[in-house]
């Protein structure tokens, strides 16, 4: 298509034969484009509304996360205080199987599938149940719960964020389409229609002129023919008379006849 050229020039038209059939097609196309534009616009608005809501919630959740993580970090400080030493290495080494996992589900928003993470804890495998057995065990367990809650918040935030990324993408696509329809397809179709119309009008006018011309010519021809016919009739009559005169003379004096010049 003539994409780049179209953007500079006033919207180009499609290369069609300006026929009445094409005009009908174009008109229905325009109508379709307008309906589509309206629908997409509405979709985009719905999505944007959702998007703004999500954005706001992300903003909130991120701030909340700051607090929650601080509390969690603080509970870890409590553990350090109670155990009286560093448990980091031991924790890292005894981690084996995730107890805390996420499940992903989908949610439909105006035809867009948004994922939703859902945290769940598997039962049974607890890698750290004996951590802090000698001292600090209670703090360790409490810290675990605090962190588990913090991670839940993080998971929630992650679903919001993923929704944000996907919605962002979808909205961009939809808006691109809306704009494409609004600024390219509709003007172009309109232009095409205008072109076809003017072309058809032109044809009409030409036809009319031609007809007029033809009839004028015909009339003139008719007049000429009439005149000729009349002239011919006069000539014939005169000739007949002359003929008659010559015949009588000829019969009388043969040799002294001169050439008759008309």
């Amino acid at each position, binding site marked *: 298509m003539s994409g780049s050229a179209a953007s500079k020039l006033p919207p180009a038209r499609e290369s069609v034969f300006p026929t009445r059939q094409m005009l009908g097609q174009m008109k229905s196309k325009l109508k379709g484009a307008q309906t589509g534009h309206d629908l997409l616009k509405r979709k985009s608005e719905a999505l944007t509304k959702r998007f703004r809501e999500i954005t706001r919630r992300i903003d909130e959740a991120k701030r909340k996360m700051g607090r929650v993580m601080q509390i969690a970090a603080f509970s870890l400080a409590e553990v350090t205080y109670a155990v009286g030493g560093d448990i*980091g290495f031991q924790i890292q080494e005894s981690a084996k199987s995730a107890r805390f996992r996420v499940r992903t589900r989908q949610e439909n928003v105006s035809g867009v599938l948004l994922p939703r993470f859902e945290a769940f804890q598997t039962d049974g495998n607890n890698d750290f149940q004996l951590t802090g057995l000698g001292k600090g065990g209670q703090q360790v367990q409490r810290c675990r719960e605090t962190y588990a809650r913090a*991670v839940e918040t993080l998971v929630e935030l992650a679903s919001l964020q993923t929704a944000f990324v996907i919605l962002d993408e979808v909205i961009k696509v939809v808006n691109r389409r809306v704009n494409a329809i609004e600024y390219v397809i509709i003007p172009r179709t309109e232009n095409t229609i205008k072109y076809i119309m003017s072309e058809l009008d032109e044809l009409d006018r030409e036809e009319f002129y031609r007809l007029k011309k033809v009839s004028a010519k015909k009339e003139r021809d008719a007049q000429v023919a009439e005149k000729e016919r009349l002239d011919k009739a006069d000539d014939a009559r005169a000739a007949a008379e002359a003929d008659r005169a010559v015949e009588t003379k000829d019969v009388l004096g043969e040799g002294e006849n001169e050439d008759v010049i008309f």
Partner: protein
Amino acid sequence: MATTAAFKDRQFIAVIGDEDSVTGLLLAGVGHVTSPPDSQKNFLVVDQKTETSAIEHAFDRFTTERKDIAIVLINQHIADRIRHRVDTYTAAFPSVLEIPSKDHPYDPEKDSVLKRVRRLFGE
């Protein structure tokens, strides 16, 4: 866009963080080591000595190579060290989340997602 199959298997949370953050999150039970022989961990402890390339490598592994990770948690100050990577990462899965650490309180100004938010609303 992600298909159903792409995220059905994603169920782990990966962590790149300083020792305290990782310890805490592991305590919550996110830690997972895949079965031997390759036994891959889903967490990385970063300190001053950790090379930036190691962080990048871990980030790439969690975000692109491994297909079982749903969320990547990364400390903000560590994300700063590989900022360009984090900022250019736009895929929906896995979701990358910047989290505060004990010694580095959360700064919303630096967050790559919040930056996008602000850009969108022209603030």
